[in-house]
């Protein structure tokens, strides 16, 4: 049966175009390891290679301080596209000769169209990749590169200080988003929220003893967890002041401990602690006045951060 005339003339206004099939190898070949990180605050300028997020910057600093270079940086991948929904991820060319702890389990053969010439590593696996690439594990060093065992223990203490007091102050210093913004914005990365950092834990927003239960905005958001300002704990002004007091104390202690050493705790070579401290200092110096003034008052911290920033920036490029 033929298509009737009037319909045919109507359909002639909407012609059908057929395009040739896409070329599979259209993607650029991955020449260099690429790290996927969150946006830098200055991403408009061409030489901004360092992320503004503490977690991503920490790993960038780790790669640079371990001596790697010529790594490409990508800001355009959203956190939802990363493994476990967390950036940073490292995209590396596949190395069949290297045996990592995770390749031991999957020996399955390639299933055809999957392109397994490259691998995407989540953050915890970066350490092992670097160890294999440099053929040198940090565990081979006596005391992981620190001066002695006491310094290694102390480094753990400094890590928990940074990830506790300093991180809480950083979170509190970020401007709180309005209700509308927090509903409309895409879900933010699952970074540590205030209620898991402050000890003892802050009270629920309606108090412990009141009859009203406290709801968090996660019930109403269609996307899942929203920013940490809309969760169900009440951060009173007393807690806020306490956090900033502890933060000031922490920066003072950090500055005194650094003194005039080249690397923290008197190590000869940069250690993961240096990477973490650099990440926090860099983010603090880019955030608001309240937290920035504490660090800018300590000249040795500023000078140290500037020097390490030069080293870290040199290892990455955007192109």
């Amino acid at each position, binding site marked *: 049966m033929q298509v009737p005339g009037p319909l045919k003339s109507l359909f002639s206004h909407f012609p059908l175009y057929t395009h040739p099939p896409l070329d599979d190898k259209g993607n650029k070949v991955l020449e260099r390891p690429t790290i996927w990180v969150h946006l830098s605050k200055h991403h408009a300028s061409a030489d901004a290679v360092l992320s503004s997020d503490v977690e991503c910057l920490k790993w960038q600093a780790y790669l640079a301080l371990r001596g790697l270079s010529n790594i490409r940086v990508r800001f355009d991948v959203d956190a939802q596209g990363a493994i476990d929904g967390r950036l940073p991820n490292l995209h590396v060319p596949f190395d069949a000769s290297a045996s990592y702890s995770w390749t031991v389990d999957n020996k399955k053969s390639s299933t055809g169209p999957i392109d397994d010439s490259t691998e995407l590593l989540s953050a915890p696996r970066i350490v092992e990749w670097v160890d294999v690439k440099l053929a040198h594990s940090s565990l081979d060093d006596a005391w992981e590169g620190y001066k002695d065992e006491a310094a290694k223990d*102390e480094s753990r203490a400094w890590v928990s*200080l940074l990830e506790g007091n300093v991180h809480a102050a950083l979170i509190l210093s970020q401007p709180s988003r309005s209700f509308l913004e927090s509903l409309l914005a895409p879900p933010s990365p699952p970074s540590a929220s205030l209620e898991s950092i402050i000890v*003892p834990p802050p009270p629920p*927003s309606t*108090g412990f003893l009141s009859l009203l239960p406290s709801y968090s905005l996660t019930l109403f958001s269609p996307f899942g967890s929203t920013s940490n300002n809309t969760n169900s704990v009440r951060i009173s*002004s007393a807690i806020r002041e306490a956090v900033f007091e*502890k933060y000031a104390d922490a920066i003072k*202690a950090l500055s005194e401990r650094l003194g005039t050493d080249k690397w923290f705790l008197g190590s000869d070579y940069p250690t993961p602690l240096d990477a973490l401290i650099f990440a926090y200092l860099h983010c603090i110096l880019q955030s608001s006045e309240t937290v920035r003034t504490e660090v800018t008052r300590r000249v040795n911290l500023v000078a140290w951060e500037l020097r390490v920033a030069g080293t870290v920036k040199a290892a990455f490029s955007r192109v």
Partner: protein
Amino acid sequence: MIELHVWPAQWGLPSMDPASLALIIYMQLILPSKFMLVESVNPDISPSGQLPFMKRGKDIVAPASSVIFYLLDDANGFDTSAVKATINPQDTAWLAHAESNLGDLVFHMFYSLHANWNGLTHPSIVYQFPIPQRYFTPHRLRQSYRSRLESAGLWSLPGIEQEQKAFPKERPLKEKLNPRDARDRFLKVFEREKVLKKARTTLDMYARLLDETKFFNKEQPSLLDAIVAAHILLLSRPPFPDPLLQDLVNTTYPSLVAHADLLYDETLSVNLPTRKATQGSFLGSLLPTVDQAEQSDVWETRLRLAFIGLTLGGIVTYISAAPSIESA
């Protein structure tokens, strides 16, 4: 008169909460017996919403870290030069580490293991609350620690006695049915091993730091001693139904237990003046508290009152206008 509002006393210790206990020990070191303990279960009256907090005349200081800064501040008239001489920069880092990691271990024992929660923590606190709060506040307290313990990987570990059924007659029937039980039991043991491993790494560090000396900073006890001792006392002394970490501490770390006992003898073996907090009207505590210090919300209060006024005015107008509509 200085008053310290803390969680209630249990098991021979003046408080059942590590932050409160550490603050009591530290205050005993600085101002022996010059303060009074107030046992309270109402954290909502504190400015930060948490216990412990301190009241001295007109000043109310909370939370615990602010109290310590207040005590060390010369402007407040305490003689703390002896204590200040013992402070060095690493201490700040160790304090943060102790509060965070040892705190996680203590919270895990009290709030996460089901056997301990049901058998020890819950019964010791529940009867101190007035009637309506008794039924929901302990659960809220437990949930407030959840996010912290989840991010540390220490939440919701199955305990030993979790499988105790109410009616033991049913057991022989059920045991025949599940071959999966053996695998589950293996997984549970494996998870307990992970917790033990985490605890060992942390406690090893403190044992190494203590290293044969009497206190952490040579001869004088300091804040770090107070905090570590408070946590170790709470890990070793209470009679836990599920003694996962208690056994670990008592058998493998005698130096830490000895240090904690030494601090206990120096500070807590005297009788501290205590009183129970006056119970405010419990109806008032059923409503959520309004933070008095929030000056920036004056506009918010005004708008809120305007909204309520408009609502009530509208209702009154409608009711007064309604009979004329119905009759028509």
